[in-house]
């Protein structure tokens, strides 16, 4: 019997199992179950779970909401492009626009406080990659994804686009401050 010939025993399924195989299958099965329940358990006990809260949206609708937030909570502007920096209150809705090739506006949050971060794209797929903490979320046009974020460190963070979105993809970087 060889793997490239038909099994010599017609009733191959009655062939005995070696202890090496039996033991490994048992161990591997237990490990698979540990991994499965780890994912489920993290939803109960863990603090990093991606929210599935999503709404259908249109670019104009989302842009209007983002503009309203900017009008209300802008504290200053930065760079020559006068990008608004918004400082929304704890627990509020924060809108971040992804478009070719920028993230708008700059957001200022406070450490230890929670916010409802709304993400969508005005055009192609984009990637929300928060650095250096390293959180990565897909941003899909037509879908408004609401993620509750709670910064646990203060400092300056960058939002790097990590979904390919055309020629200037590598210049699409936004900013988040945590006080």
């Amino acid at each position, binding site marked *: 019997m*060889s*793997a*490239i*010939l*038909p099994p*010599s*025993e017609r009733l191959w399924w*009655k*062939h*005995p*199992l*070696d*202890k*090496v*195989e*039996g*033991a*490994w*299958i048992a*161990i*591997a099965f237990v*490990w*698979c179950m540990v*991994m*499965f329940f780890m994912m*489920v358990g*993290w939803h109960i006990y*863990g*603090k*990093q*779970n991606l929210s*599935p809260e999503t709404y259908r949206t249109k670019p104009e609708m989302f842009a209007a909401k983002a503009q309203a937030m900017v009008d209300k909570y802008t504290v200053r502007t930065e760079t020559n492009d006068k990008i608004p920096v918004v400082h929304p209150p704890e627990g509020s809705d924060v809108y971040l626009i992804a478009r070719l090739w920028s993230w708008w506006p700059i957001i200022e949050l406070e450490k230890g406080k929670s916010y409802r971060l709304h993400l969508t794209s005005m055009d192609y*797929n984009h*990637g929300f*990659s928060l*650095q250096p*903490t*390293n*959180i*990565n*979320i*897909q941003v*899909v046009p*037509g*879908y*408004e994804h609401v*993620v*509750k*974020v709670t*910064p646990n460190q203060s400092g300056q963070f*960058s939002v*790097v686009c*990590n979904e*390919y979105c*055309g*020629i200037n*993809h*590598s*210049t699409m*970087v936004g900013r988040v401050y945590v006080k």
Partner: protein
Amino acid sequence: MSSTVTYRTCPRSGLQFEGQAEKLMIANAFVAVVFLLIGGILAIGVALTRWPAVHWLAADTFYQVLTAHGIDMLIFWIIFFEVAVLYFCSSTLLRCRIATPKIAWLAFALMLIGAVTNNVAVLQGSSSVMMTSYVPMMAAPSFYLGLILFAVGALVACFVFFGTLVIAKRDKTYQGSVPLVTFGAITAAIIAVFTITSGAIILIPTFLMSVGIVKEVDALAYRTIWWAFGHSSQQINVAAHISIWYAVAAIAFGAKPMSERVSRGAFLLYILFLQLASAHHLLADPGVSTAWKVVNTSYFMYFAVLASMIHGLTIPGAIEVAQRKKGLTKGLFEWLRKAPWGNPVFAGMFISLIGFGFLGGISGVMMGTEQLNMIIHNTIYVPGHFHATVVVGTTLSFMALTYFLLPVLFRREMINPGLAKLQPYLFGLSMYFFCLVMMGAGTLGVSRRNWDMAMAGATLPYEWPGAAYLMMGLVGIAGIAAIAGGAIYIYITVGSLLWGKKLDSGAVSPRFTPIPPTAPTAVVQGYGSAGFAAPGTFALAMVFLAAFVLYYFINWKYLSQVWGLS
């Protein structure tokens, strides 16, 4: 269907090749290697651009080259070779003629026309949309049309394979069940049918959108269905290269499966659960429920991972049992120490198996864990993972099999066997290192598919840590070393076809010789235990498990330190 059917028995291997099937295998394998060559040349551009100190190509050329590299390697090289493997596992291993050879040639023509059309579209420059071509970013219509033609051709080839199985059964060329390797190939073909159908479902409307007939394809629906094609096509590879590992173990050692029941059961788990894996590409997406993510990404409670862990044990286990029978019984590892490490067929297969398990397998489970995915999604960790599965796993296995096929199928003596001995080590080990440093850079957050990590021209640039630059430099160096290894493979295979000494074809006959029935065993034992036949392999499996468990919890520790998300 076919006019004259002739069979020849290879004097070196005893394998029987049917004339038409043989020509089809040669054509498909040859075109596969041509696409590997194109993809390999493109890889130079990718590696030298992502190496920050070199940063060779301009942005538009880089994205164009990266698109072509991905499609030529992941789709065209691999699937052309897989079609050759399917024909080998049916017609050659079952010693029958191939079903409908004319239709098989049609499949080949469709695949070739499709592959060329797609490459031309990318070459023209308006289709730099990456392999995934996420809508609403649009490529030229011929980009999608090429992929669709290729997919239809591949689907037809799968049905030729199924038809060949029917012929073998009807003509009674074998008795009992099909060989394990053929069983694995059937698994691959079943997965392929599912995969290619998914591809057609999403690429046809996208093609219609590109020519203006359909107004819009939903971005999230596209991602969901595209990945049922994109990831599942990698599952065809897994089933195919694992079949090749079993075949190499049988060819190089005369190894028989430790247990047909276990190995076939594991392939069955692939058919049932492996498809679900495509869901892990959507773990960071909006609009998909948590329960859906957890169930699918675990390939339903990790049963497909279980299957891979089983194959990972039973293949070296089968080799160990065969080697111990030959008297290599000293200690735990004499069987492995005295394995034919100078034979590129074995060395390639074993380097592939270890790398696929330790690097590709473990990292794949990390990315496929719902929460851990958030620290990995779309970073360069992802290509680090799939180079370990598709390059170390699939490509290196195909290379190892080629070294066996050169004298047997192509009837040529290998040129420069000394260089061939070295090739799996150079290619495999530099690829190991390449994958490791890519995953290292990904852990630091470096993005994939990015032309310039320095972000020149950005209004609000981000400065990556120095370690990330170091890792990406090492990615460039290791990538070039691996490309050199790939070039040696192409030099040896193409060189052998051109200049290798012609070998005797063996006796030709108009009739097939059925596989002689093996003597039935007098007493079939019932279920039970047969001893502890492969202690060395078991020890290796424990090392694997320890690495897996440790790395798994390190990643959870890392995740627990990032911002709170809920």
